[in-house]
């Protein structure tokens, strides 16, 4: 690939989705964008694609950005975050939201939907939430993947990764060789397109945010910016779940770790369960390695 073409994609992807692409990942550009160019009837491979895109081409840009996203996910991914949700956070919110009986949850890069559906199943399994107004908002940058999430149809392989069999029979119906999420679970979730690089205040304020396995694709300044965006729509006593390989430490001081619950973060000015003060003081940014 020509150096200038690589630079073109590098800049475009960083600007449009935050994705950082390094020269060692050139093969990824080729394996994902060559088929796209072909499908669009563009001659001359990636060079032809770049030519077509220079000067702006909104639909091609979107197609390129979507083709480059990694949508790897599974039901109850990593398991522990969902255990923590059930054992540590549900009790806290049942207490703090007991009067309003309402809860808003955001799955911020929901991919094909396994994450928001897992959250919905956990809520269904907690009898204390009966009669509550619960809204799960699930967003992603990619329209294609959102359409899949909304359809809620999964292959036999997908439903066997992380999903307990008891949950499969309870919340899914069989459609031919595939499994479809039942309507009452689907109705708990609203799927919306949203780019984490943009202002997201129109989504409203959330009690619980899942933003898992997407920051890993961004550089440090972008991670920081996205964390600030998330903070703006996380309630002061809300919580944030990051992926297993992600942290706020050394990146942003708008969130801090919740000491007794690993992988969960609260706002720097958090009032989450303040009466019990389980929250660690935020480490000074200067003290941690950048």
């Amino acid at each position: 690939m020509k150096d200038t073409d690589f630079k073109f994609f590098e800049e475009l992807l960083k600007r449009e989705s935050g994705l950082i692409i390094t020269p060692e990942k050139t093969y990824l550009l080729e394996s994902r964008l060559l088929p796209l160019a072909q499908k669009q009837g563009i001659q001359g491979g990636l060079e032809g694609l770049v030519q077509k895109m220079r000067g702006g081409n909104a639909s091609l840009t979107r197609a390129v950005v979507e083709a480059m996203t990694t949508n790897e996910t599974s039901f109850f991914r990593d398991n522990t975050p969902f255990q923590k949700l059930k054992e540590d956070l549900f009790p806290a919110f049942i207490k703090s939201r007991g009067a309003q009986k309402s809860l808003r949850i955001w799955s911020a890069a929901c991919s094909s939907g396994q994450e928001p559906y897992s959250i919905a199943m956990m809520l269904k399994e907690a009898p204390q939430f009966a009669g509550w107004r619960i809204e799960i908002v699930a967003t992603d940058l990619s329209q294609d993947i959102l359409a899949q999430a909304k359809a809620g149809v999964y292959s036999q392989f997908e439903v066997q990764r992380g999903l307990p069999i008891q949950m499969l029979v309870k919340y899914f119906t069989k459609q031919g060789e595939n499994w479809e999420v039942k309507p009452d679970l689907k109705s708990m979730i609203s799927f919306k397109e949203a780019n984490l690089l943009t202002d997201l205040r129109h989504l409203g304020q959330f009690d619980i945010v899942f933003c898992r396995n997407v920051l890993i694709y961004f550089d440090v300044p972008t991670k920081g910016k996205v964390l600030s965006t998330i903070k703006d729509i996380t309630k002061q006593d809300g919580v944030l779940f990051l992926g297993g390989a992600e942290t706020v430490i050394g990146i942003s001081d708008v969130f801090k770790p919740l000491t007794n619950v690993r992988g969960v973060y609260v706002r720097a000015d958090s009032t989450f369960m303040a009466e019990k003060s389980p929250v660690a003081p935020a480490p000074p940014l200067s003290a941690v390695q950048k």
Partner: protein
Amino acid sequence: MNTCLIVDDSRVVRKVAQKIFEELGFTCNEAEDGKQALEACAKSMPEVILLDWNMPVMSGIEFLQELRKTAGGDAPKVVFCTTENDFAFIQKALEAGANEYIMKPFDKEIVQSKLLQIGAI
């Protein structure tokens, strides 16, 4: 050491399963049908049983129903592993006391995910 009894009438499936379970730290024993499996359990109860449905002599579901009635037979975690993937079969297996259910074809990732699910690893 974790022990696993692999019950399947196909030698190929038993070999594939054995390799996966050994990689996950199990010592494996094999049986070709439900009757052989009951005999194996009478000698020594495994921690995990991977169980096919359709087998000659005694089927997987008959085996499971018998097993859960015998002394100590409620201890093993039973994971069905079968080409039967209809709702009714899964339901029946759960009612008979199965802990998990794998729909063939399967791979290491699925087995691992299911064993984690039931706390067997």
